[in-house]
């Protein structure tokens, strides 16, 4: 599958937005879906639907096999050691909450520290804040440098004898900085500290190898990987999933239930209580196939070319200020225009069919640090082209014209 005409795999681009071609630059928020993923949802509900794991009839067995196939595909795609290290959740947010609840409940005590960074999305801060309130743990923030990066040194500086967990993003959804997660994990493990990586932005754009990174937990958002909404993945090392308590109680996660005692099911069922997002899981297998057909190396190369081109043209555009200039930068271009509020930028760009996001992108800590209430963000996906970035630039110029800049 060639990346040059990949747009035709995505039916959304057949639509006109305000009579213009859609220039979709909001993939960090959520990516568009290829036809194969959409068709798979439809096919499952039309011809194959059944709940999984419970009944013995034909459809139930087939659905269970399809569901477990996706687990195997993910295991392979992220190079996890064991299929049972893949836990389905309702999103990356739930994946992080799962760890906060179980790891927090079992291993954290008053005065213990969790180290996060100033780049973190609220979903990798608020769950730890709950523990700050309920258990009296402390949250420390590794600081960004002037380029909007988190270095190994900035992490090292904040590690103390009380640090129990380091929870960091793989790729910042605002500055685009790619964190040295492998090096951070190595450092953390040398001090007996566990590591959680928020892979929401990392997973769609970077080559994933869990055994190489060696982190303890990795959270994935499937709808940002050309997959369905309502689905996330928690990768966790088997030793943790075996040691940690269950997250939610309900059907499917139990082994034996008596009036005075309950035992829990084996992995991965222990963490998948209730009926799961079955159709989404089954369709997500097509997202993995889609990514594999293009090849992650090709995706990285394509997006790197775009990000360099985007930075180049926006740097030339006076009154546009790019946020962060990390050396290792992923598919995000955040910016401000002097004299135009980001929400006004977004509304004006939308009129041209250019979809971007404006706001703090769930990163209020970072925006406070940068001293701005909000920013505009153009984020890339596999379907974007240089022409899309040219249109972005030309719509920014139109915006400047409207504001008499």
């Amino acid at each position, binding site marked *: 599958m060639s990346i040059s005409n990949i747009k035709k795999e995505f039916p959304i681009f057949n639509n006109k937005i305000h009579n213009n071609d859609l220039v979709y630059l909001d993939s960090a928020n959520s990516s568009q879906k290829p036809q194969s993923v959409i068709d798979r949802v439809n096919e499952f509900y039309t011809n194959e639907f059944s709940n999984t794991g419970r009944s013995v009839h034909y459809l139930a067995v087939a659905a269970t096999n399809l569901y477990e196939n996706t687990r195997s595909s993910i295991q392979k795609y992220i190079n996890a050691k064991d299929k049972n290290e893949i836990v389905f959740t309702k999103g990356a947010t739930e994946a992080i909450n799962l760890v906060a609840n179980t790891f927090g409940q079992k291993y954290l005590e008053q005065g213990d520290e969790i180290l996060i960074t100033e780049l973190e999305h609220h979903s990798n801060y608020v769950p730890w804040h709950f523990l700050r309130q309920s258990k009296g743990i402390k949250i420390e923030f590794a600081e960004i440098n002037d380029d909007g990066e988190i270095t190994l040194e900035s992490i090292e500086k904040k590690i103390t004898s009380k640090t129990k967990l380091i929870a960091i993003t793989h790729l910042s959804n605002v500055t685009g900085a790619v964190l040295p997660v492998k090096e951070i994990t190595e450092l953390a493990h040398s001090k007996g500290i566990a590591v959680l990586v928020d892979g929401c932005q990392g997973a769609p754009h970077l080559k994933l190898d869990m055994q190489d990174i060696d982190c303890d937990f990795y959270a994935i958002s499937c709808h940002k990987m050309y997959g369905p909404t309502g689905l996330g993945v928690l990768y966790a090392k088997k030793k943790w999933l075996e040691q940690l308590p269950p997250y939610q109680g309900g059907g499917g996660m139990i082994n034996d239930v008596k009036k005075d005692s309950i035992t829990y099911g084996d992995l991965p069922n222990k963490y998948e209580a209730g009926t799961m997002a079955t159709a989404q899981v089954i369709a997500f297998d097509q997202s993995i196939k889609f990514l594999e057909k293009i090849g992650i190396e090709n995706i990285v190369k394509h997006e790197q070319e775009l990000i360099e081109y985007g930075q180049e043209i926006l740097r030339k555009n006076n009154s546009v200020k790019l946020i962060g200039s990390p050396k290792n930068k992923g598919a995000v271009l955040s910016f401000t225009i002097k*004299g*135009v*509020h*980001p*929400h*006004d930028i977004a*509304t*004006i760009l939308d*009129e041209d069919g250019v979809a971007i996001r*404006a*706001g*703090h992108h769930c990163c*209020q800590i970072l*925006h406070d640090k940068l001293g701005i*209430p*909000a920013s505009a963000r153009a984020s890339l996906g596999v379907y974007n082209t240089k022409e899309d970035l040219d249109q972005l630039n030309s719509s920014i110029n139109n915006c400047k014209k*409207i*504001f*008499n800049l």
Partner: protein
Amino acid sequence: MNIKELYQEIILEHGKNPRNLRKTDNFNKDAKGNNPLCGDNVHIYLKLDEKKKVEDISFEGSGCAISMASASIMTDLIKGKEEPEVKEIVNDFLGMIKENPELKSKNLKEDEKTKLMCLSGVKQYPMRVKCATLSWHTLISAIDNTQEEINTEQLG
């Protein structure tokens, strides 16, 4: 609808040079408002005289052109009016933004109505309505002394 109907000159001008963007000395009523999804925030200060007439009104805050222009135009227009009139004007404005085709208030002069109608462009942009109404909701909260911070996500 053309984007220029939303960003009319008067809005751009008020957004760039907001009137009454300061803090009233000896204010006797105030309230804060914020729009958590956008990050717009406003703090309204009111000084009412003994007859409950608005002697001075001002605001501090930051936000998009629409929210700043709306607060600017509102404060300009409310000054010198009496409390019941203010409430009636706020309701009329919110009604216009929500559903009414025009302003009906007898407490507004024609040129004041024309100025306010420049904000009616947001009706076509549902995501931006909150930008235009934040300062108005906050003004009511200041008058009623509810001591509650206005949060646009909790308004119906």
